[in-house]
């Protein structure tokens, strides 16, 4: 047994765990935050994605003892009061889910993706990897989100939702009102501002 001190969604927690406990099981079974989901438990599906010290990771492959001293943000910690995180709002606006099981992981992963893009990280599909300006488009979002599987195949709505949140999406209502210009997206605060 090891005592783990970890800040989860801005609240400090101290939990004595068996060393074998994953961060995911700590969140779900010990702290009662069941928003993060257990899909495969092998790092293959991404349903367990959380932000560890601001970076997206698979919490099923992260031992709780390894997270000792870290800050964790789960889907429950993204909203500010009753105001949803822009990525959460975009998923609602775009109906970017069907059963919803992968959604917390998708959203946490997307929050990570937006930060990585702001930091100028290239991806496998980036044409010029020496460029520091990342422009997210469908192909970039699909590649960057490939660690999150959706068995309902809601990808067709997930991709536009992530682009909306990135400020590079299309106004979902624009087609209904041709000629009318309306700001399609809200600016996205940095991960650290939100957490």
């Amino acid at each position, binding site marked *: 047994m090891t005592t783990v001190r970890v800040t989860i969604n801005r609240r400090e927690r101290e939990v004595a765990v068996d*060393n074998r406990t994953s961060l995911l099981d700590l969140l779900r079974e010990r702290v009662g935050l069941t928003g993060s989901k257990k899909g495969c438990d092998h790092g293959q599906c991404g349903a367990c994605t959380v932000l560890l010290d601001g970076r997206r990771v698979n919490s099923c492959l992260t031992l709780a003892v390894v997270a000792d001293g870290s800050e964790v943000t789960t889907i429950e910690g993204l909203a500010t009061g009753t105001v949803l995180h822009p990525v959460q709002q975009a998923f609602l606006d775009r109906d970017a889910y069907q059963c919803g099981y992968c959604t917390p992981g998708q959203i946490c992963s997307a929050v990570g993706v937006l930060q990585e893009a702001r930091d100028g990280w290239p991806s496998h599909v980036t044409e010029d990897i020496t460029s520091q300006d990342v422009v997210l488009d469908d192909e970039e979002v699909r590649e*960057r989100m490939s660690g999150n599987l959706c068995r309902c195949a809601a990808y067709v709505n997930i991709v536009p939702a992530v682009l909306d949140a990135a400020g590079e999406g299309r106004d979902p209502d624009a087609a209904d009102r041709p000629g009318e210009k309306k700001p399609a997206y809200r600016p996205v605060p940095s991960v650290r501002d939100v957490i």
Partner: protein
Amino acid sequence: MQPFTYERPADLESAVALLARPGAKPLGGGTNLVDLMRLRVETPDTLVDVSGLDFGGVEALPDGGLRIGGTYRNSDLAADLLVRTRYPVLAKALLAAASGQLRNMATTAGNLLQRTRCGYFMDATKPCNKREPGSGCPAINGVSRELAILGTSEHCIASYPGDMAVALAALDAVILAETADASLQLPMDGFHRLPGDRPQQDTTLPAGAVITGVEIPGLAFGARSTYRKARDRRSYAFALASVAAALDVEDGVVRDVRLALGAVAHKPWRARAAEEFLRGRPATAENFRAAAELELADARTTEDNAFKVPLVTRLVTGTLLELAGSDR
């Protein structure tokens, strides 16, 4: 998962001392090791978490090369501008690997030490000479689509699954490691082993050693390098075959070339025969194809993975043509 003791040493010296314990293993990002522990393929008594030890990031070396810290995360390494400009092959290999989440976790050292994804190795209920020496290799007459075609033995046809190490093999990288009484410099080419009659041993790294870094020597044409990976889906899958290449062409003739193949052997396969064939020859599709065929002359395939021979031949040809600035 078998119970284990968790240790988080404050420095390298303590880490090396802890790793001298029988049954101790170093822990990096855990993306492979923790999974294998859950599958009861790995059963360490002690995990020595070295992931928090700071062995530096990316540092330029006087010879134009780079030094990379052993615990630097794959995502940071792929995003590093020095890596992206001096050795695009390395950045591209990293970006072709795993997922964004896994790259945020994985370390340089841990990536090098990841184990084969052979289905029999990962299933503790099956015989496997790598996991349980002497128990047999069901892969040879079994499911072997992902497995090796070069340098195999009658005991094991497992393939090394990683991408980063294929780029490092092409770049003549050197692994830096520390044991209780020695500082080691292990050239990439001899770091991963062929299976022979000891498939249980993946590398030549001594037990208890900590990988502290990797040095890549300067390479004048390193900027003219790339990585191509063939897989069953376009993202987030292990390679069926991959190619890491750097090419120096002058007046249509190959002046120098570095070539390594992934997912075809128990180790990242440095294609030295192909390199030697190409030096001084015209940079043409015919020569690139002939070089690949020469390298694959001794390939031993199964019914499942015979497709890798033409696949690798085309991958090598296409990749070198791209670097030569020609489409055909």
